[in-house]
């Protein structure tokens, strides 16, 4: 997919561009807000990665302008400002996700890919299916190969998030943010424990495992 990176730090930008290129995406670079806005207006991009602090035009202003013009391209906001209020500010301006510097590239890639996928389904889903794993969002039931699996409420939400992003890498931080709504990293690997419990229910009794650990990044649910 096509990604526009609006970032004034050339070293940081080339690091991101290289990574995105290696992951099979086409990435362009804009070194300041104005150039970025003009390039984004072409509408050829699937995702925008926007740094908050930019010369010529502030990152949030770029997003606001695009949103006012009716452009709904998903935006990942990058910032060195980590306070929650600033995160909220970034999302309120029209950003879809917020990533604090410094970040691991895997984290950025996972979030960018998650943003694109999110835009696709459009209509409200009531059923999710990955391979022989099925989830009914209304009845709140999960089956694999027709067999019902009993999940705790939180396990259900965890699996729902994984299924919505099936085939993509989701990071521990993403899970903590989206499933638990915590914006800090606990010292102990609490997420690993929860994922392994979920794995025990949806994978262990079956011969083929679907929930994979991606080293140095997170997890991937795959059919």
């Amino acid at each position, binding site marked *: 997919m096509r990604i526009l990176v609006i970032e004034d730090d050339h070293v940081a930008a080339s690091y991101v561009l290289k990574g995105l290129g290696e992951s099979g995406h086409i990435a362009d670079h804009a070194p300041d807000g104005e150039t970025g806005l003009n390039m984004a207006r072409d509408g050829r991009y699937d995702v925008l990665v926007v740094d908050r602090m930019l010369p010529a035009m502030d990152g949030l202003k770029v997003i606001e302008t695009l949103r006012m013009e009716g452009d709904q391209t998903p935006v990942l906001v990058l910032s060195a400002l980590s306070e929650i209020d600033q995160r909220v500010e970034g999302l309120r301006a029209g950003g879809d996700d917020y990533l604090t510097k*410094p970040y691991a590239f895997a984290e950025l890639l996972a979030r960018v890919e998650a943003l694109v996928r999110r835009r696709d389904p459009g209509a409200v889903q009531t059923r999710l299916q990955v391979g022989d794993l099925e989830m009914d969002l209304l009845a709140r039931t999960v089956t694999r190969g027709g067999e019902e699996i009993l999940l705790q409420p939180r396990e259900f939400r965890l699996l729902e998030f994984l299924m919505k992003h099936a085939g993509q890498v989701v990071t521990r931080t993403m899970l903590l943010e989206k499933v638990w709504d915590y914006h800090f990293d606990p010292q102990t690997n609490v997420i690993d424990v929860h994922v392994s419990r979920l794995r025990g229910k949806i994978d262990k009794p079956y011969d083929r495992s679907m929930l994979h650990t991606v080293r140095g990044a997170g997890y991937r649910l795959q059919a």
Partner: protein
Amino acid sequence: MTQRRAFLRTTTFRITLLAAGLFAVFVSIILAYVYSATAGAMARQDSRAIETQAEDMVRAYRRSGLNGLNRIVVERSVGASEDLYLLTRPNGQRISGNLSALPEDRPDDDSQFGFTYQYPTEDDETVERRAKGRMVRLLGGYQILVGRDVEENARYVRRVTDAIWTGSALVLAFGVLLGGFVSRRFAQRLDDLNTVAREVTAGNLTARAPRNHSGDELDELSANLNEMLDRIERLTTGLRHAGDSIAHDLRSPLTRLRNRMEDSLREAERGADCQEALQQALDDADGLLNTFASVLKIARLEAGERREQLSIIDPQQIIEDLAELYEPVAEDSGLSFTSDMEEGLTIRADRGLLSQALANLLDNAIKYAPEGEAIALRLRKASDGRAEISVTDTGPGIPADARERVKKRFVRLDESRSAQGSGLGLSLVQAVADIHGAEFTLEDGPGSSTLEAPGLRAVLTFPRAR
């Protein structure tokens, strides 16, 4: 010299000078009035008396001629009196009266004039005394000097004048001294404040303005200044401490990271696979960044940011969420986990910050309590009605004398050096507690299953939410 010039330039000195000047003018007016009311009144009284006498003489001469006048003069001249008379013939020869001769410097008209005369004392000597009088020229060339001894009055007037001059001098001296003293004191106190300000500017943040606790404006200014300096000192000390700590505590992991990279570079030159070393280096770097982020976060919290964003919440949901997140983790570590909550409690809190603080406490409990021990997360109403959230474990505990120390940044007890951690967890809890106005205490827990260790109870006690 320069100091004197500086003093002369001060506003207080100028104001004092102005006040002293006005004071002097007022005092002069008052003294002038006093002079006029005493000495002036006496002089006027004398003049009137002389005029009356003069009229009497003219009337007597007109009525009963020279003889009648002479009689009156003789009558009035007998005995000690302050009234003076001298009746003369046209050639100036004395006829009668208590004066021996006409004064030389008498005016030609009948205006009043001052003169001196010889006054006989008891021991047959004479003294010169001052007098005032006028000439009355009668028909036929006779003339009479009507006068009045003013020696006593003159002396009295001089005393009054002297008193007025002395008084003025004293008043002026006193005014200047008092003004000088007051302005000096005021200038001194301002100078003290300036000295403090300069000292602080020069880098001594412990300098404080002197206080006299009188509660006046300057004292209040000093108090406010000191309060401001206290806050600044706290912040800068915190920052400097953080800076020192970062420098000190990041050095070893940075060195480790550097060594590892150097090592893997050598390995790579020999064609060895350095994937693992790189992964470890990456982990080290991440650890460093995390530590860095924590330090910044603590510093921001300590600076008091976000204090305004607390909202009144029921902490139950926070406890439930955390219990749900941590229960499986504790169980996987072979620890039993319980949580219980009392209902109907409200606190002013920020969900994110409070969750993070409690997560730190739970992380610690899980990290340090050995397998088979227990952890409890509890929300209850303390005996004084305040909401109390506690994390209890039956692990090794923290010795009483180390409980304050471990809340400081980067402090790790020797017993825990082997375990992973940055030594920032409890500092963050303390910072979060401070933001919430909550008390953070560490105390002995309920003991442990090994009967050896006391366990640990970490308690956050919140002020009552309004």
